[in-house]
């Protein structure tokens, strides 16, 4: 039996856990969403949504150590959501790529790098997700498979095809 006091403590524990997760993972999740979507404001919304959903599902989360994986999966799923993307498009004017980091570089170099990101975002969804999880979060094939809910064989296949397509596109642009 759970008393009112215990229930309150559970809620406090949940909020503290959630905040710890926020501190540890929020920035990376925003960046992951940005990689998949291309818009920072929307990426922040997606990451926040993931935390809100985790909050709702906390009681059903059997193992708190699974929370980061849950957040990752949710971010990827939400980044897929056309509705979310459409709804926030007006709140945050499209910002193709940040340019602060490349201010010291030549225009040609920046264009080159942007082409890499543009080519990544132009890939089919699964290939894009596999590559983002692999080369940004450095996830193993097994973790990528768990995040996307597909087999490791599919991860290998999507990653291979994605890289091949990327190489081909970049060659064509060169």
């Amino acid at each position: 039996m759970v008393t009112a006091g215990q229930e309150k403590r559970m809620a406090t524990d949940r909020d503290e856990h959630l905040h710890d997760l926020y501190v540890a993972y929020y920035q990376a999740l925003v960046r992951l969403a940005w990689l998949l979507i291309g818009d920072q404001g929307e990426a922040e919304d997606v990451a926040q949504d993931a935390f809100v959903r985790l909050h709702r599902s906390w009681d059903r989360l059997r193992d708190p150590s699974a929370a980061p994986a849950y957040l990752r999966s949710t971010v990827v799923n939400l980044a897929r959501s056309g509705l979310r993307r459409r709804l926030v498009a007006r709140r945050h004017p499209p910002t193709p790529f940040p340019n602060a980091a490349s201010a010291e570089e030549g225009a040609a170099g920046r264009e080159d790098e942007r082409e890499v990101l543009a080519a990544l975002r132009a890939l089919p969804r699964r290939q894009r997700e596999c590559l983002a999880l692999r080369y940004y979060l450095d996830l193993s094939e097994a973790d990528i498979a768990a995040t996307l809910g597909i087999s490791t064989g599919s991860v290998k296949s999507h990653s291979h095809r994605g890289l091949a397509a990327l190489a081909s596109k970049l060659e064509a642009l060169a």
Partner: protein
Amino acid sequence: MTTEERLRSVIHKYTETIEPAQDGWARIRDRTAVRHRRARWQPAIAAAGAAAVLAIVVAAVAVVRSDDRDGTRVQTPPAASAPSEIVAATEDGRLVVLDTATGAELRSLADGADAQTTIAVTPDGARVFFDRPSGPDADPPREIATVATSGGEAQRLIGGAGQPAISPDGRLLAFVSYSPRTDQGQANGLNVVEIPETFDGWVPNVVGDGTVGEADQQISAVSWAPDSRQLVYTLLFSPQGSYPRVAESESGIRLDQAPIVPINDGSAVAGYLGDTGQMLGRTCVASNEPDQRLRVIVIDPQSGQETRHLFRYPDNLCGNERLTSDPSGRHVLALGAAGLYRWSEGDTEPTKIADGIRAAAWVPRVATCRDGDELPCDPGDENLQLTEKVVVAEGERNGVGWQLLAYDSEAGLCVGLRAGPGESGACGSGVPPLPISVGWGQQAGFAAFAQGFVRKDVTLVRLELSNGDTIETTPVGAEAGFEANFFVASLPEDIDLLRGIAIAADGRELGRQETPRHLEVRDTPEPVTENADPTPNQ
């Protein structure tokens, strides 16, 4: 440098420049806190008539929270609304429909129906199954009957049976069958049959059945799992104790051998908590105060442990109450000696609806949104409606406020344009090559914008403006369904009307959508903001 190295390098270089705003945690807290404020809205919803529920929810949206971010208001809706109707059996033998909010009797379904212990309503809300006495001398004495929720004559379906339970997919009817009474008692069986389109000449197709081992054991609290495959029930007076058991509907196993869920002593399972996968139950605690004895709780079906306290029911007789969840698992009916009470997520305590009720069940909210429907329509899933329905743009023209609304629903994406008292729009994933919405307005950063959602195979959107200009743009983001959307950031300042929209695929015009008449405005456009983006999105 290989492609992999190049990709890794660029990804890390650019992602490191993305610094989220500092208010992320505050926004998350704000949104999770909204869930706890739901109770504030219950009185408003409770006061509404059945037909007014949606309207009240929409109206409430406008005042709950306004997140003034970049000049565009994004609103978070209030509490989830309960189904608006309840089917109940009265003590005088009538089957009636009650208003969820007030408990008022809305209509009578069947006089003399004499419904007894259990009522089940189909997921589409169209039909009611209930059990009733089959006659003073009948043995077994119970039978299952059915009647449409629109009313009509009750039809006898299955003799010697009771406790009907309808699967969430609406396909199967589970019930308890009773053998003729003997000195040892009355044997029970759990049966599952397919529900037919029509009951005329119906020959039940038995999908699964099982009989308890002992005649004096009784099956109680039959309820379907969300997967429409498993059933939970409690076997009273079983040698192992009255623990809930979970049976596969198609296995035909002996009921007394179904796996037991080892719940705590003093607790009982009433059934599944809607589609949450959790179980609804109650636990009895020792107390001299009637309203402290009975707690309604959520039980984990795997461990049997209590995972959440929902509310207290003011009943002094633990074990006589019946608990019923709606399909969402957010609303519960509790019926016992103290009367019929309802409870909704966010409520701190249940609200009494009526006395003199023998049995009751929610009438599920049913989606009224269908392809091509005009708004307002009810997407049926309150969670979708209440968490996703947002005002994506709004403004005022000619003294009339307008809003572009959007929300996700099982029928697909619903969008609507609302101006003054009128609202129009469409829902659905099957909308033909036309866009399902176009809106326009102004916000910080844009002089004026046009926004629309189109089918994924649409390759070109052409906007025909009132000043004669034409703007063509390519939808982006096409992946599945309505993934594609277009966005034109800078419309000419001199337009006074976005006349319509033409959609093309592979260079061929597929159709056009005219601007809704009630949004035709011909006044001078609103002033351009100072931050207007001068770069056309072309």
